[in-house]
């Protein structure tokens, strides 16, 4: 499978082409419901995580929350 490079929270990551945002988040062992995602400067709505396919050079910022307050 062909790979590509993206940047996530400042780090370069090599990932498989065609991967969706939700798969990428799950592969990091994070619960997508608890994550705010910004891709190339745009905040991605939660209901788009399943369909957004990452592409070469994307710059992702993920902010993950844990419970308690």
């Amino acid at each position: 499978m062909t790979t590509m490079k993206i940047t996530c929270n400042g780090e370069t990551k090599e990932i498989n082409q065609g991967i969706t945002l939700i798969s990428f988040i799950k592969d990091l062992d994070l619960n997508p419901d608890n994550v705010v995602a910004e891709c190339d400067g745009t905040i991605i709505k939660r209901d788009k995580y399943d369909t957004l396919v990452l592409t070469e050079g994307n710059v992702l910022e993920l902010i993950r929350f844990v419970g308690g307050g």
Partner: protein
Amino acid sequence: MIKVNEQTVPYQEGTRIKDLVETHKAGADIFIINGFPASPDTLLADGDTCCLIRRGEVPTAGEMESLLVARHTPGLHEVVKKAVVGIMGLGGLGTVVAGALARIGIGKLILADFDVVEPSNLNRQQYTISQLGMKKTNALKENLLQMNPYVAIETFDELLSEESIPEVFDTVDVLAECFDDPAMKAAALSSVLTNMPGIGYVGASGVAGYGDNNSIKTQKIRKNIYIIGDNVSAAEPGQGLMAPRVGIAAHHQANQILRILLEED
């Protein structure tokens, strides 16, 4: 000129603060000059701000304001009393953030929570036994008005959502995210970044347990947007939420809200 309980009066050399009792506050027995307690015999200087108080008496709004002004850094109160702050979630974080802001004389608080006070809340949330079963919005409002009766308070007692947040809090200068549920924390930040450009935002993540005090950090995400906590200490079986550490995070939040209002970002 000097200021005496909100009034500006001419300065006369040689005046001691006790000389103002008869004309400004009969029976006053507590004297504050420029924010600090003073003895009755203290000589006044031109430009001093004086508060005369009768011990045990509830101050009027004007007196309360002058007391707050006197206790704060000059210029701060002018900003704080105009500020509107929204608080989402009135638990261990929200009740403490609200209390700290009420005590510094914030202009208006918008308090939002759908829940009622339960016994399990009392280990960290600023409610009392007599308030069990009350809506949190009403219980907290009651408590805040005991701390400072001159804070304007609005309440919203329905479940918040990503869609409703911009509507409910459309007038705020700063929004405090004090939710328990991590999905709501994420939804709130997403909503604000998308729909409410320009407001301040102070959220929290990682406040459970009794880990190192100094692992609670104030992290800047972008201009006027902050997340407080250690990012990892989730509330989960084996790691409870307790008043001390939640309180540390809540006061980080309150101080950061003040810093945003004062444009110290």
